[in-house]
């Protein structure tokens, strides 16, 4: 068997040896590092055969995505749908990262900006809509399977669970391979790919590749950040351990375990609230001012102690009589991480970029969660508020592509909390739906890299317009960047009209803006159902694809949360505005012919694909929504 470069690397390989079981770690030389496992013999009782198990595989993909949280899922799905053979490597048994059933953090986004949401669209919305259909009860374990379904149904994705990327094998400034350990199969994978995307949060692969990163907090002066500390320090926001309880209908006793840490709430900031405690308390949180990754197991143990200490306080202090019938029915064992490595890209996003709403020529994502910097010390510093909520945005901010790839590792991109940004910028952009938008952007960029045989930096230089257009077509929203796709034949239509109009204008559907925003109306809404939309061209057009963006009410949240709020701002059903049934006709030689029909539509972006036809007009007949009296659309596109 050939040795791979990894095993010839000497001292760097020793790092990997430490995390791969059964590798000799005497460090006496590269030769001794060979992963031969010659003591591992199997003997089959039935056949009497014996041999050596094969525990090494080398596989190749167009794109390797590390990390199966919201960012990684969106990166992998974007790459796969755009034609890249993609592997998604996740070190846990379930997808979802912080929003998985192992951790259960709310999957939030731009939930509330001036009293309403400005929801993320694109792949993350598709996941959340899928969740509305399959998991209206908002069960986190069911959400695991919703995400699993969402990923494995993509033919271009290979999903590797329980697999951790532990070491990069380099070729100059490029990652050649990722060595990945799959715990359940004892398999060491060598994954080769021209493009790697690290969405793992901690970014172990990127770090072993030598990608530059920083940890801690920038001082005020470095980026002129109002909310940064005066001097730089090492603090990283803590991880939270969550739990949930159940009303048993009768008094339930609770006694804390041996490792519980007594909690009294004495001297605590008034902003450390207990409201909603039956579903967990987010300020049961411990961070680090040193190596937060190395501290993780110690912090986990502490967090488990604090969790039980706080629950003991709730159950037994006498201050919460309403908790008498409550009993813990789920307790986390895996803390939900907020911060560790932040890798450095060609651009480093800082506070003023966000609060000043800087316009980026390479914007590919947006955010709008507040600057929500959790306090240094976490639960070990309870006299401080658990978070400072420095700044609440009134409009969304842009996020640039240049912050999503490494400045010194040429084929490495990022999405999620490990992207190129200051600690203060992270305090807003770390929110999962924002990370998911970054994921869709880098997944799409990866396909451009592969199809053009270029590296991410080159995408910025010469393909940024193409990347933005692809994202917009795939239903991402980029602030201040209307779509303008030269291939979109709908924009060349000589006439577009709706059968009835109760608000907006059918002409808005080709203006490139796929939501109402900044006070501008960009929709057409019918007056009742059924309704028709028709496009006419003077000359026949060869069309094989018609794509619509219908209303899903992006001003109202459909996020994955377990408080099951159901009000003006949050909703846990299928948005009633969404289009349910529709059909498409094309006028061919003067006669209308059926080109497609969709029942029980489940997405905002609705696609008709059919054999290419030469048409002088198309009409879309919409017959049903999920409850709204009229149908509202934001975009129609047609392609050859």
């Amino acid at each position, binding site marked *: 068997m050939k040795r791979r470069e990894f095993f010839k690397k000497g001292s760097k390989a020793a790092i990997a040896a430490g995390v791969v079981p059964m590798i000799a770690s005497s460090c006496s030389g590269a030769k001794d590092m060979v992963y031969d496992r010659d003591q591992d013999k199997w003997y089959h009782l039935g056949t009497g055969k014996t041999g050596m198990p094969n525990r090494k595989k080398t596989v190749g993909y167009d794109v390797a995505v590390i990390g199966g949280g919201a960012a990684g899922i969106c990166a992998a799905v974007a790459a796969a749908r755009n034609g890249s053979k993609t592997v998604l490597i996740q070190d846990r048994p379930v997808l979802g990262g912080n929003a998985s059933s192992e951790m*259960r*953090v*709310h999957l*939030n986004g731009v*939930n*509330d900006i001036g*009293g309403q949401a400005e929801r993320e669209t694109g792949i993350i919305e598709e996941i959340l809509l899928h969740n509305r259909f399959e998991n209206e009860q908002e069960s986190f374990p069911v959400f695991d399977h919703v995400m699993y379904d969402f990923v494995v149904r993509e033919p271009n994705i290979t999903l590797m669970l329980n697999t951790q990327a532990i070491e990069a094998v380099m070729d100059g400034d490029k990652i050649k391979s990722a060595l990945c350990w799959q715990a359940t199969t004892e398999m060491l994978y060598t994954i080769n790919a021209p493009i790697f995307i690290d969405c793992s949060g901690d970014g172990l692969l990127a770090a072993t590749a030598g990608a530059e990163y920083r940890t801690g907090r920038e001082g005020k002066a470095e980026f002129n950040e109002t909310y940064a500390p005066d001097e730089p320090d090492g603090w990283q926001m803590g991880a*939270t351990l*969550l739990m*949930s309880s159940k009303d048993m209908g009768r008094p339930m006793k609770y006694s804390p375990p041996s490792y519980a840490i007594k909690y009294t709430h004495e001297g605590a900031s008034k*902003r450390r*609230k207990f*409201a*909603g*405690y039956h*579903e*967990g*308390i*987010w300020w049961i949180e411990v961070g680090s001012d040193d190596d937060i990754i190395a501290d993780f197991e110690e912090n986990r143990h502490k967090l488990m102690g604090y969790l039980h200490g706080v629950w003991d306080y709730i159950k037994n202090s006498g201050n919460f009589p309403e908790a008498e019938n409550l009993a813990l029915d789920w307790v986390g064992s895996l803390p*939900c991480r907020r911060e560790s490595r932040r890798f450095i890209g060609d651009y480093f996003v800082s506070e003023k970029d966000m609060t000043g709403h800087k316009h980026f020529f390479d914007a590919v994502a947006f955010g709008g*969660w*507040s600057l*929500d910097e959790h306090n240094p010390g976490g639960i070990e510093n309870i006299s401080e508020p658990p*978070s400072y*909520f420095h700044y*609440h945005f009134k409009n969304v901010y842009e996020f640039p592509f240049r912050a999503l790839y490494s400045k010194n590792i040429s084929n490495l991109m990022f999405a999620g909390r490990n992207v190129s940004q200051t600690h203060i910028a992270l305090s807003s952009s*770390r*929110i999962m739906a924002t990370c998911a938008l970054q994921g869709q952007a880098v997944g799409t960029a990866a396909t451009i890299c592969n199809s053009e045989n270029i590296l991410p930096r080159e995408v910025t230089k010469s393909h940024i317009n193409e990347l933005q257009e692809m994202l917009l077509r795939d239903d991402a929203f980029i602030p201040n960047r209307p779509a303008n796709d030269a291939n979109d034949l709908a924009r060349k239509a*000589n*006439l577009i*009209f709706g*059968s*009835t*109009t*109760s608000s907006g204008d059918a002409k808005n559907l080709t203006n490139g803006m796929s939501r109402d925003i900044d006070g501008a109306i960009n929709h057409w809404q019918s*007056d*009742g159902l059924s309704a028709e939309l028709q496009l*006419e061209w*003077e*000359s*026949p057009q060869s069309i094989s694809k018609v794509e619509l963006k219908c209303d899903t009410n992006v001003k109202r949240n459909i996020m994955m*949360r*377990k*408080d099951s*709020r*159901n*009000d*003006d*701002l949050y909703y846990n059903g299928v948005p009633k505005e969404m289009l349910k049934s529709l059909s498409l006709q094309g*006028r061919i*030689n*003067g*006669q209308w012919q059926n080109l497609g029909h969709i029942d029980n539509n489940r997405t905002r972006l609705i696609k008709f694909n059919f054999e290419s036809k030469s048409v*002088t007009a198309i009409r879309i007949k919409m017959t049903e929504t999920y409850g709204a009296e009229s149908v509202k659309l934001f975009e129609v596109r047609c392609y050859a």
Partner: protein
Amino acid sequence: MLSKTFIYVFFIVPFLFLFQNVFDFDEKHEIIHTISVKHPGEKLPITVQLTEVHDETGLPIGYHTNVESVICLEQVCKVVAVKLYWNNIGTYQKYELNPGETLEKYEDDFFEAEDYKKLHTILSNTASPYGEVRLDEVLTVVDETVEEVDAVSGATALELDEKDTVPGAALTCFTLWHWAQGDLVSVMKNITAKTINGDHILEFLNLESDTHYLLAIEELQKRKIYSKVYVEAVLNRISNDKTLLRKSLEYIQSAPKDVYLSFAKRLVVNGGEAERIAALKSLQNIGFNVEKSFFDDLSSALKHFNTYQEFSGFLELMQTRNPDSEIITAAVVPILNEDFLTARRAYYFLLNQNLTEEQKHKVEVFNQKYSGKL
């Protein structure tokens, strides 16, 4: 129908005069209705005395009732009697307290003057978040100055924008909003709908309020009233407000055939673009047979058409309900000289009609001229 007249003499706290004078509730004829109604703060229906106030002609001009300021939790807040007023279609108008009474917040804090004004604003808002929140969410609120959080708990189950609530008085807002905008509204609408006579309906049709108009239309349809005076009022109204077109057409589509056809024809001939398009679509889908001559007569309207959509709606109607009409065909052939898209639409129509030799020739000429665009 007249019952005893009650004169309520309230010594109202001064700021409440801000909300008055929409309707004069003094010394009118009143009928008391005993209503059993659901309130989301209570498990069982509650019985309330709803007073209908009407004028000398029997037209309801408003309603009022007395309710309690908070539901079910006397230990949380002091319970105060609140009198709520609505107009005759159940639109909340104002509230009043008994002399000397005041509303309280949590922890013995009192309403300030601004809080009373804000409460009125909240009760007036049909789309208030209080319509969606649950009582248990309201009850967990002890402090509404909360921020967003990224992890699981949220600081409270109820996070309302400052403008949507009186801080510290969520339960009062919740309770009163559900009285002001809850099930009683449809009760009042129903009472008014059943009470109004033909003159009142006509009055409603001519009011600027869409809600009054729609209630009148619905009542006309229920009572199967299609006399000229009402139909004319409807026609007049929709010529000024196309948002009422759909409901108005639903009403007229249930009229006797002659009334419907006359109405539809007037829309096609004399209406604006939206009315014409809606009428053409209605005629295309109407469920009874219509004489050929009626459709042929519509050709006279073609000269009024301006847009592709109008022409196209007309041609679709003719293709479906009146194909191969010589009169229509003759009227459509000149459209081949209109702007290209409209002309092409006419061309496609004519391809499916029986044509004279001359007409065929014109179609052929069009075909030759635009062969690459068809």
